[in-house]
């Protein structure tokens, strides 16, 4: 098995008196997709923010290639090759594909104060990078990002991260806001990134999507890792149950049904007992 690129060892995070993450230990290897599953409020977004340098852990350590690393800000995380792609792609809807692809790293021609943004080259590289990820509908780098579908925007953001040398790709709920087709599209891109040897951290609460691409799964409940297993070790139902906090959906459904039967078909009121 290859060595992990990024590992967390007993990472804790608290905001004042509130503990958000307890003793999180995780490893991400190149060419592997680690799915981070968890319900809303389980601490997924805090974990992402620690990985991407927005927050710093209050305890434990982060290792890059086996050596301790600290990310004081998002810039430092990305210098270590960690790229985070957010739900809406983090792109600029009113900018062209070429311009948004190269934001902050614009190719120029000319010299001195007369350096000119090289639109042609930017467009060529951006379109090629996106097409290499299988988005063949994109032909013109002058098109506005806002004209792309949600899936295409995600793909553009992933292609951008890979182009600029990302080794660890953190995808924050990339499929949450997408329709079935678009989500499948993004999952294909995730597989392509994996094939290219990137380590992918895929955050989601959609078990189906996680199982489609994941090699390794971690379920986060109330800030702690409740389960850590590899592909094929658990069924979809088992994972869903885990995410719901151990209480199986089946039991819950049975409870509701019993209640409705004894209350003229009314559903139970939340917090009434």
């Amino acid at each position, binding site marked *: 098995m290859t060595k992990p690129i990024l590992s967390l060892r007993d990472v804790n995070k608290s905001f004042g008196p509130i503990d958000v993450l307890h003793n999180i230990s995780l490893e991400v290897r190149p060419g592997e997709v680690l799915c981070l599953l968890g319900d809303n409020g389980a601490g997924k977004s805090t974990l992402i923010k620690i990985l991407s340098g927005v927050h710093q852990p209050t305890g434990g350590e982060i290792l890059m290639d086996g050596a301790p690393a600290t990310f004081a800000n*998002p*810039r430092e995380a*990305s210098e270590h090759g960690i790229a*985070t792609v957010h739900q809406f792609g*983090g*792109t*600029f*809807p*009113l*900018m062209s594909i070429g*311009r*948004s692809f*190269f*934001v*902050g*790293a*614009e190719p*120029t021609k000319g010299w001195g104060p007369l*350096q*000119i*943004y090289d639109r042609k080259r930017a467009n060529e590289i951006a379109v090629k990078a996106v097409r290499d990820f299988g988005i063949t*509908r*994109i*032909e013109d780098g*002058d*098109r*506005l990002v*806002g*004209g*792309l*579908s949600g899936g295409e925007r995600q793909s553009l953001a992933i292609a951008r991260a890979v182009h600029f040398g990302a080794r660890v790709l953190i995808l924050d709920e990339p499929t949450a806001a997408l329709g079935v087709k678009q989500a499948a599209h993004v999952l294909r891109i995730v597989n392509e990134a994996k094939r290219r040897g990137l380590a992918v951290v895929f955050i989601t609460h959609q078990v189906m999507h996680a199982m489609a691409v994941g090699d390794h799964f971690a379920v986060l409940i109330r800030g702690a890792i409740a389960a850590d297993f590899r592909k094929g070790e658990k069924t979809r139902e088992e994972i869903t149950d885990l995410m719901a906090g151990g209480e199986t959906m089946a039991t819950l459904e049975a409870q509701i049904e019993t209640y409705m039967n004894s209350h003229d078909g009314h559903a139970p009121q939340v917090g009434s007992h």
Partner: protein
Amino acid sequence: MSNPRIRLSARFSSLARRPETGSLLGLLIVFAFFAFFGGHSFLTPAGAASWLNVASEIGIVALPIGLLMIAGELDVSIGSVIPAASMTVAVVSGYYGLPIVLGVAAALALGLLVGLINGLFVVRTALPSFIVTLGSLFSVAGLTLGFTVLITGSTGVPIKAGPAAKAILGQFVGGKFEVSIFWWLGAIVIVGFLLHFSKFGNWIFALGGDKISARNAGIPTDLLTVLLFMGSGFSAAFVGLSTAILYNSAQVASGSSFIFNSIISVVIGGVLLTGGAGSVVGITFGTMTFAIVSQGIFYTGFDANWASLIIGVLLLLAVLLNNTFRKMALAFSTRLKGA
């Protein structure tokens, strides 16, 4: 791509995607309107000079205001930086009689300083820039009035600039055209280069599009914001000092009309109020449109009071058009690729 209908609509979509398309339409309509109702005298050099002079003064301020608005900020403090700069050059070089170079330098430094303070305040407090610059609008106006009365004992100060300063900063070329028209043209070239051809332009668009993503992409967003505010302070100071030199005097209250006039010009020019889109060509068209309406009315038989109505309606139309063009720009690209 051989289908001519697709090619035509592709060309149309790329035209619609350009933010200046709407402002060019507006300019042509307004120009045709006043050429028709204003008659021959509107089309003479004197008629052209009347609106070009107004356009140049607003335009020099509207360009950096446009950059700020594309970056998602606003600066209303220009309304008091203009008279403050007029007053600075008049007090330094008129009242105290120091060399004009010193007065000009002091006025420009004042503009940069107000911009620096605005920028730092906006970046540090994360308050809306409208509120911050509204505060500095009143503060600078108060300081200008207070110091002017304290130093000179009056609210108007005369200044007599030498022929060289007059030639460069404040005279009528050919008896009609203000020299500021040429400064405006220079500013269009410089700001146009910065916004559309340099990488800083890309940073400004990104900043206005999504500040956090821009910062994560490594753009020094705070520095950029401060520099943009300094740019608008500098330009406002330039307009202030050159009008003082042109009219041989400075008044403490003479700039508040610039606040709305420049913002209106920028919006008519197709800059989105939400930031992230706009163009220098559009801003220039918007400025010309505004100037033509405000001056062209005098060439028609209409009561000049109607000019504000036309500008108000134009502004609303411009905002609607901007929205429509933006929607078209975003929608066309997906539909076309399906075709």
